[in-house]
């Protein structure tokens, strides 16, 4: 594709919430503020394996705010799902080691006991998963599965909970919710199942909704519906949304903030529209360049050479350096030896890269 200067982004696209919060370390200070629901600091998640410990997530720091959607983007194995499952304490403590801090609505999740986690799950933070067919229990009626989550956090009768489930199904746009509530998941279509999954996620009105690849298993026309639904529900409930995806198009459609992950680490953070329009990390840049477009013709796609690294055996220095085209712009062999910090590169932007003037370098890269 050609190296056209990217036009500036209209700033009116996103409704901005202007509640201020105290500036903190590593916080993108230019970002509009909402109440911080989730604050993750220096999170590391490791799994033992036959070949050695798998470093699924390393030194991850971010926060999610009410009324805003944060997209976590990365390829498979980048640690995006692993980090979000840790938020609900869903990793088996016997088969994983988690360090750092996850503050969910003021409660520390890392090392929390089962009772604490149980109170927060679904009530404070809920999760919806990629494949709604396998995420809903095949043996129980959809309505009952939703009611169960409501019953767990509200001392109401079963009938009340069932009514609530039907209301939720109606809210997410399932026609004939009374009848649908009494059906099993396999009687639903793919889009309907994901709607039911969202109803289940929102039944306790959580402050944080984590959507893990919610539309990957769906067709584009249905995906658009579901994304619209998530957007409108967020507007209605004002909750924080974390959207985990590998699809940059989905990010552009719905998210306010973005966090790009590569091989278990955050490599770039900032406002979604800024990052996507003017990426500063070579990986983000290359990823955007390699996407074929439905709106313009292209002769040759830019590629990222090689394959994502093994999480057991990460490359020395910057994990991306073996695939990076800009590494020779960094003097010496810093890229291969020194792991760069996630640093503020420009207002509201953080990158994990040794490049002193990334935007300039990448603009030249694109042109060459």
């Amino acid at each position, binding site marked *: 594709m050609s190296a056209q200067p990217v036009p500036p982004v209209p700033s009116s696209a996103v409704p901005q919430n202007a509640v201020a919060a105290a500036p903190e370390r590593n916080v993108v200070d230019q970002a509009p503020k909402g109440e911080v629901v989730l604050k993750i600091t220096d999170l590391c998640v490791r799994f033992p394996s036959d070949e050695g410990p798998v470093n699924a997530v390393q030194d991850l720091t971010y926060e999610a705010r009410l009324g805003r959607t944060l997209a976590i983007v990365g390829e498979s194995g980048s640690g995006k799902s692993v980090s979000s*499952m840790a938020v*609900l304490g*869903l990793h088996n403590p*016997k088969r994983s080691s988690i360090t750092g801090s996850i503050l969910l609505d003021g409660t520390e999740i890392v090392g929390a006991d*089962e009772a604490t*986690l*149980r*109170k*927060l*799950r*679904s*009530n404070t933070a*809920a*999760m919806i*998963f990629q*494949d709604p067919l*396998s*995420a*809903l*229990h*095949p*043996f129980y009626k959809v309505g009952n599965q939703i009611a*169960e*989550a409501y019953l*767990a*956090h509200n001392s109401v009768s079963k009938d009340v909970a069932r009514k609530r489930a039907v209301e939720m199904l109606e809210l997410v746009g399932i026609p004939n919710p009374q009848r649908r509530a009494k059906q*099993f998941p*396999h*009687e639903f279509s793919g889009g309907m199942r994901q709607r039911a999954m969202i109803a*289940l996620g929102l039944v*306790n009105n959580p402050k944080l909704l984590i959507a893990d690849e919610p539309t990957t298993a769906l067709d584009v026309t249905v995906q658009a519906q579901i994304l619209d639904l998530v957007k409108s529900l967020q507007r209605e409930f004002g909750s924080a949304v974390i959207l985990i995806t590998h699809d940059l198009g989905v990010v552009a459609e719905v998210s306010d903030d973005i966090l790009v992950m590569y091989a278990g680490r955050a490599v770039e953070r900032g406002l979604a529209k800024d990052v996507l329009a003017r990426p500063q990390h070579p990986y983000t840049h290359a990823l955007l360049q390699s996407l074929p477009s439905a709106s313009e013709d292209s002769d040759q796609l830019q590629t990222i050479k090689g394959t994502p690294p093994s999480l057991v055996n990460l490359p020395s220095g910057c994990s991306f350096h073996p695939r990076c085209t800009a590494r020779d712009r960094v003097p010496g062999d810093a890229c291969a030896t020194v792991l760069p910090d996630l640093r503020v590169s420009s207002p509201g932007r953080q990158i994990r890269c040794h490049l002193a003037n990334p935007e300039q370098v990448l603009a030249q890269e694109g042109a060459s």
Partner: protein
Amino acid sequence: MLIYIARRAIMAVSVILVVLVATFLLFFAGPADPAQSMCGETRCTTQRLEDIRRSLGTDRPVAIQFKEYFQGLLVGRDIYVSGSPKHCEAPCLGFSFRTGVEVKDALATRFPNTAMLALMSMVIFLSVGVSTGVLAARRRGSGLDRGIVGFSQVFGSIPSYITGLLFALNFTVLYPLLPRYANRSDGIAGWIAGLVAPAIILGLFYATGYVRYARASMVDTLNQDYVRTARSKGISEQTVVYKHGLRAALSPVVTILGLDMAGLLSGTLITEQIFGVDGIGRFAIESLRNDDLPIIMGTVLIGCVLVVIMNLIVDIAYSFLDPRVRLS
């Protein structure tokens, strides 16, 4: 749902029919001469042999014999026993060559013994097997888990008649810790007590298999997405494991139960022999030594019908467990 049950029932009937024809052909049309075997060691005269053949009807074409046998099963028939016709009501399985007792009656008196033994061992292997398997799955990787799996592997690998024999010889004969088999007519309590030892051996042997099925199924289920969903609802771990996990983990175990029914009957047969339980298995072995064909055939038929019925029950139970089967 009804279609499903109907199809299984048709399958069951077809199996019984096939077995009926096959056993009939094997036993009655085979070269083994029932008359000869009735005469046994004491050689009969040729005239006497002929008489017996005529009274049994084995001198007539196979098709007619089969028709009569089948007729006997459905509506009853007359059979010549020592020269005089005797009516045998449906379902007629004939009369014992040796004792002249009606096969049906002979089996009916022994059937409760076998059924009770099978039932008791089933209760043992299902309860012990599944609960131990679930326990191992929940403690996956722990010493307890390894111990359970290792023990079930070793114990389940040694043939049940070996452990059974050693158990019987040592604990009911040599050091009588457990009561030996007693007839039902001598009192129900003693009867049941006498079945405890064989039921434990048979039950534990089968339990080893169910420990491993249940464990594998439970481990698999606990890794499913829907269990993760259940956990993310904030319900108690007990509910997650038993309501969401176990419910789904049980259905593959139930399928295996269906496949095991035929094996369980074999198991009771040999256990009866070892512990001296007067059931249909032991009766069959005894009749085999006497070449008492009507009894052998009756036993095979009854055994087969039992297995088929149990299979059918298991299939129906399975369809109730899994709504996907029920509705698709």
